[in-house]
């Protein structure tokens, strides 16, 4: 039996890493005394899995995790106990018990929505930004080099993006909506998208550190957008 949870990561925990977040849940699960299953071996660890890692500095309304249970328990009681053990900024939203072993969250989630807020010149208006975004959307491909300690990799981000649009642009602050694909071959971070748009399309942003918020994670199946909780309904 598994317990699938949806939770939000708010402002007060914006700057913790995915690893930090995983530790928070481990400790909270222990404090809440949930009957979590443990791995065998010298160094037993909790059998928990997350849908998608969230970067340092990013908030979210829609994180998902599966907790494997070693015995049956009431979902309501577990959720109530866990809620009391979560620090400010982490809020449990929906939850559901899964009787059958589901496909790994990581394998089914394939679409992510982001709201991106970033300062612009007060003279910049939405139409200006729209034109540039359209140029990007109509281009065949747009590549950039992702640098990491493991080496540099050239990535075409265009096929990884479903939608990008300006949702507002007032008093020197622009807000964008981004819907991007999470594929077997990888995904692209919103910060990377914005950097590419600035560097290659001249998007006039005043900061290279946009405020990023993940507003949804979906399982897109036959054209329908389902939340990972709905998938198992």
């Amino acid at each position: 039996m598994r317990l699938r949870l949806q939770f939000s990561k708010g402002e007060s925990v914006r700057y913790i890493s995915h690893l930090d977040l995983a530790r928070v849940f481990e400790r909270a699960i222990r404090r809440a005394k949930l009957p979590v299953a443990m791995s065998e071996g010298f160094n037993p660890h909790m059998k928990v899995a997350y849908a998608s890692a969230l970067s340092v500095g990013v908030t979210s309304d829609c994180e998902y995790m599966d907790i494997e249970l070693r015995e049956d328990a009431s979902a309501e009681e577990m959720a109530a106990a866990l809620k009391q053990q979560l620090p400010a900024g982490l809020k449990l939203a929906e939850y559901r018990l899964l009787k059958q072993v589901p496909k790994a969250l990581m394998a089914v989630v394939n679409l992510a929505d982001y709201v991106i807020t970033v300062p612009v010149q007060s003279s910049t208006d939405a139409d200006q930004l729209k034109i540039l975004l359209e140029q990007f959307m109509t281009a065949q491909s747009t590549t950039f080099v992702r640098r990491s300690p493991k080496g540099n990799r050239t990535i075409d981000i265009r096929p990884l993006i479903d939608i990008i649009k300006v949702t507002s642009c007032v008093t020197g602050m622009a807000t964008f909506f981004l819907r991007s694909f999470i594929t077997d071959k990888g995904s692209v971070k919103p910060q990377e998208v914005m950097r590419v748009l600035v560097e290659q399309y001249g998007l006039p942003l005043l900061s290279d550190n946009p405020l990023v918020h993940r507003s949804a994670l979906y399982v897109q199946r036959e054209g329908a957008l389902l939340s990972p909780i709905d998938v198992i309904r």
Partner: protein
Amino acid sequence: MSFTDHEILSRVIKPARYTGNEWNIIIKDHAEVALKFVLAFPDVYEVGQSNLGYRILYHILNKRPNIAAERVYAPWVDMEEQLRQGKLPLTTLETGTPLQEMDIVGFNMQYEMSYTNILNMMDLAGIPLWSGERGVQDPLIIAGGPSVYNPEPLADFIDCFIIGEAEETLLDLADVYIGWKHSGKPGGRTEILQRLSKIQGIYVPAFYDVTYHSDGTIASVAPNREDIPCCIPKRIVKDLDSVDYPTRPIVPYLEIVHDRIMLEIFRGCTRGCRFCQAGMTYRPVRERSVTKLKQLVQELVDNTGYQEVSLTSLSSSDYSCLRELVTSLSDDFRDQGVSFSLPSLRIDSFSIELAQEVQKVRKSGLTFAPEAGTQRMRDVINKGVTEDNLVEAVTSAFQSGWSAVKLYFMIGLPTEVDDDVKGIANLAYKVLDIHYQVARKRTGRVNVSVSSFVPKSHTPFQWVPQDSIAITEEKQRLLASLMRDRRIDFNWHDAKLSYMEGTFARGDRRMSKVLYCAWELGCKFDGWSEHFNFKRWMQAFDETGLDPKFYNERIRQSDEVFPWDHIGTGATKAFLHREYTAALAGTPTADCRRGQCQACGVCPELGAGIVDWGNA
């Protein structure tokens, strides 16, 4: 949160160092408290948040409804740059309040080489560094911690020092401050300091004048006003079972240095190692009872979700009921998946047995501290450990499945000759041989960590000279040449850093000028090798006209007045000198805990006694 804050936090590494909101954080409304207190730690979050004393004081102060105790750590250099660029003040983690708006800022004196960070944090907070330049609108700056027993190098910056264990003193201080604040701060800073100086365990350095002989040594340290005591004895908690222990410690998001439950099983150590300042300053031994400890572990596990408990003290295998404690804790908590560790083991097979008991699964490293390479040297320092003890302990460890041990040594101990240094290498090889005899394969590993001895105040070695940098480095080269085996991992400490530590460990008030100058030259995070800059320190000595050799390389006369003589640990100077003489003669002194009283003076002076449950 503003976009500017977001930009700043996006530019620094580990931004969660600065954002708080951890589990068990205590945030109070300033409108509803009488006192706003900051616990300031002069190192990064991961170091400061690991400090047990700091955790205890956060808990003790916040337990009072009328006190808000908040935290601040030294911002790492990237964050400092952001603060200075943006002209932003240093603020607390709990409420983001600038330090300047708080009532009291208390610094932890963890280590001499973090003093520049104390100055830097005050500067980042916009607080005048010299106590004489602060006004009634500035917060009161206090300090305490392990290195407070020679507070003099900080005397000109700090308003008052907490001498000894702060659990009770700090609450007394808070009450006096609140009374003064409520009556409209009459008489300004002098008045509050006067009132605070009446509290046992509080030292107000401005109320003392120091005079010097022409050779630079001290002629006298005397109160400069009436009703000020000529000596400030430390204060201690007599019964650890009755004092509050933090059972709801903050659980950080970041992985910190000691990321586990720290359970202090007892305080003090009476083994009497002559180099050890903690062994002299934390006397007498006071144990918590097994019953109390078991109760604390359950509360701590329930409130934190941690799974690892470190049974801490200065010498955990000396806990009188250790077997009972370890066995019953292991039994009680096995089902909850909680594991225990003993960080400071004595060198004997009993300790190995216990280590096995607590580390049933993981055979991680084992650490022993023979401290010196030859028996002669160990007798000088009164480290009651023989080579046979070590042989017995490592044999037992290798037989139990460990294949690596870590050995701690010091070089530069008084009377040390080349043979003593070589003895360290000999012991390392001996340990490898023992492993081969037990395991019959060459897979043993020994990690040899060699620090440079720094003579500390209030120890029998407060009279001895410290090795010069050149001599220390020569000894390090000798050791490196002797330990070329790839199964030996040899680590040593930067000789220059230990040398600087020495000048502050036995420094006087004049050292405050060196400290200030070094800070102005950009010294900070000196304990971090990537930031320690010896040239700047030497420049600071040059510019202030002081000579580090005066503090480090001189044999002090037996009747010399020391800058710290008016700070009392309970152990008398006569006792320390007897120990010094015994050291030079290579005569050991027995542990007073069960044996004969060695008349160090602590128990009668403090009106306290040894608390030893195994002997009750």
